[in-house]
């Protein structure tokens, strides 16, 4: 087990390094230059451009730039943003991270509670009308573009009926020194529409997997035995069957991270949510190399970590899958 864990971690680290290298190469091979964008705002004289190139190390050969970035990153220094100069990449990322975590965390929670519950409900009513309509509904939501659903919800719930705010994470008229509960309610009100949008387009995966796993478990002899002993149906379903039908769903959570990231970019864009997606899109369009690498590092790191956590959780919860 210890050997396996070490190997898995080393493999994750190697994958991480390779991913960063791929992004670095694509970034540098793709034409376009961070200073071009700066220049389009204010004309710079060639001497200034030279100084700027030197400051950001853009005049050095490719391998030296990679080495510089890597050396800095290992010391926890991810460089200075070109587009948001003189903010450091580390600071930019840490100011945007909370919003992303709030949105992503809420969506994970929604998918895990509502999605799992609906999946179990479908399995219990397999083949009935309820099951069929829930499948149709979730599959239709899965085919929906997140940005379109977001726009529809904004049009209806914030512009027409004025129930929820349509953009941002805070109400600008609520002072930062307002009572905690007021500020919390404010963030929650802003969170409702983006979270529902992102959850709606991704929840089908959880529901379907939970349904399949639950159907298989409900067929098992021990479940029939529990029923035969006259246990309450709710107890049979949740205490006996569900515990064993949970593993595939856990696997999905690690694997669904990339989907959440991609969907989040569109949802953040539509709702003006101040998360990492917008920052990354900004960095890409401005060819802000240091910021781009910072975002890439965070996102791929999260994806790879999700895979590792999934593997470890699987082994911890299901002894049968443990190697050795």
């Amino acid at each position: 087990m210890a050997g396996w864990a070490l190997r898995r971690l080393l493999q994750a680290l190697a994958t991480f390094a390779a991913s960063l290298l791929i992004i670095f190469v694509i970034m540098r091979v793709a034409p376009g230059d961070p200073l071009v964008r700066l220049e389009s705002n204010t004309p710079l004289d060639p001497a200034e451009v030279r100084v700027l190139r030197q400051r950001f190390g853009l005049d050095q050969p490719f391998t030296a730039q990679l080495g510089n970035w890597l050396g800095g990153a290992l010391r926890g220094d991810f460089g200075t943003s070109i587009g948001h100069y003189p903010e450091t990449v580390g600071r930019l990322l840490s100011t945007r991270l909370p919003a992303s975590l709030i949105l992503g965390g809420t969506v994970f929670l929604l998918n895990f509670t509502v999605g799992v519950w609906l999946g179990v409900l479908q399995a219990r009513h397999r083949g009935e009308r309820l099951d069929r309509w829930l499948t149709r509904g979730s599959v239709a939501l899965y085919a929906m573009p997140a940005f379109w659903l977001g726009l529809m919800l904004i049009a209806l719930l914030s512009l027409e009926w004025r129930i929820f705010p349509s953009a941002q994470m805070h109400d600008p008229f609520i002072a930062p020194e307002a009572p905690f509960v007021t500020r919390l309610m404010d963030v929650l009100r802003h969170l409702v529409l983006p979270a529902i949008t992102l959850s709606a387009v991704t929840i089908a995966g959880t529901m379907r997997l939970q349904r399949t796993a639950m159907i298989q478990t409900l067929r098992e002899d021990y479940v029939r035995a529990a029923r035969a002993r006259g246990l309450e149906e709710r107890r049979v379903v949740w205490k006996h069957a569900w515990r064993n039908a949970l593993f595939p769903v856990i696997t999905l959570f690690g694997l669904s991270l990339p989907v959440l990231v991609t969907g989040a970019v569109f949802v953040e864009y539509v709702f003006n949510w101040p998360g990492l997606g917008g920052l990354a899109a900004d960095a890409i369009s401005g060819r802000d190399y240091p910021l781009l690498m910072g975002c890439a590092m965070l996102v791929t790191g999260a994806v790879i970590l999700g895979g590792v956590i999934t593997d470890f959780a699987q082994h911890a919860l299901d002894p049968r899958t443990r190697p050795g």
Partner: protein
Amino acid sequence: MRGSLLDLVRNALRSAAGRWGAFVLLVLVIGAIALPPLLQDPAAIRDAALGAQAPGGGHWLGTDVLNRDILARLVNGARISLAIAALATLLTATLGAGVGLVAGYSGGAVDSVLMRLVDAAMAIPRLFVLLLLVLVWDRIPPAALILVIGLTGWFATSRLVRSETLRLRQEAFVTAAEALGAPGWRVMLRHLLPNVAGPIIVTATLGIGDVILLEAGLSFLGLGIQPPTPSWGGMILESRSVMTSAPWTAIFPGMAIIATVLSANMVGEALRAALDPRIA
């Protein structure tokens, strides 16, 4: 072998979902090919000052902000969307099959290097790389869009094809072909490829919806199909300013995307169920 692929399709069409999906997809494809010449020019602007007109009169689905016929724009958008989806999916399937076959059949160092690279590439969200590549062009041509979407979508397919190839490599028919002196490329193309065609078709079909959503998303961000060429994502982008006063400008393109992605997914699911009846 051809017979078994035909069986796969026939079995998939036996399910109601598969039949419906295939029917809607077929209607969309035929409409996209046949209708455009019969409709107004989607880019023609007349009396733009009138703004968006509600459905009815000469315009079944109404007009957009610039008073252009929405039906004509939808149908022309379908042409672009479906063409991009088909070609990008073809590219994805070819690349995935190629890399998977080579990795699985060669084994050893080639296999390790290819699969480690695929692992690394899969850890990077597709949209991230797409944005990076799409922004190389100021106004990206459709051919480049196809290339970029196709190049970023083959990783999962290659992994699947590799594992199938690994399994098949031990089979007697492969050993027989090798014993008869067939070169590696021949074994891969003539003996292995037909046997992994089923899974390739299933993943390719299931990937069509992703491609359509990605293309619509990029166009919505203003980075995909460039105006005045109509695209579903672009139409939704243009509808943003009049969403409450003229909701039809946003609703119809959204419905078009959902109908296409949904039917493609339904066909994909039916094919998957036909290939492996146990998971249905």
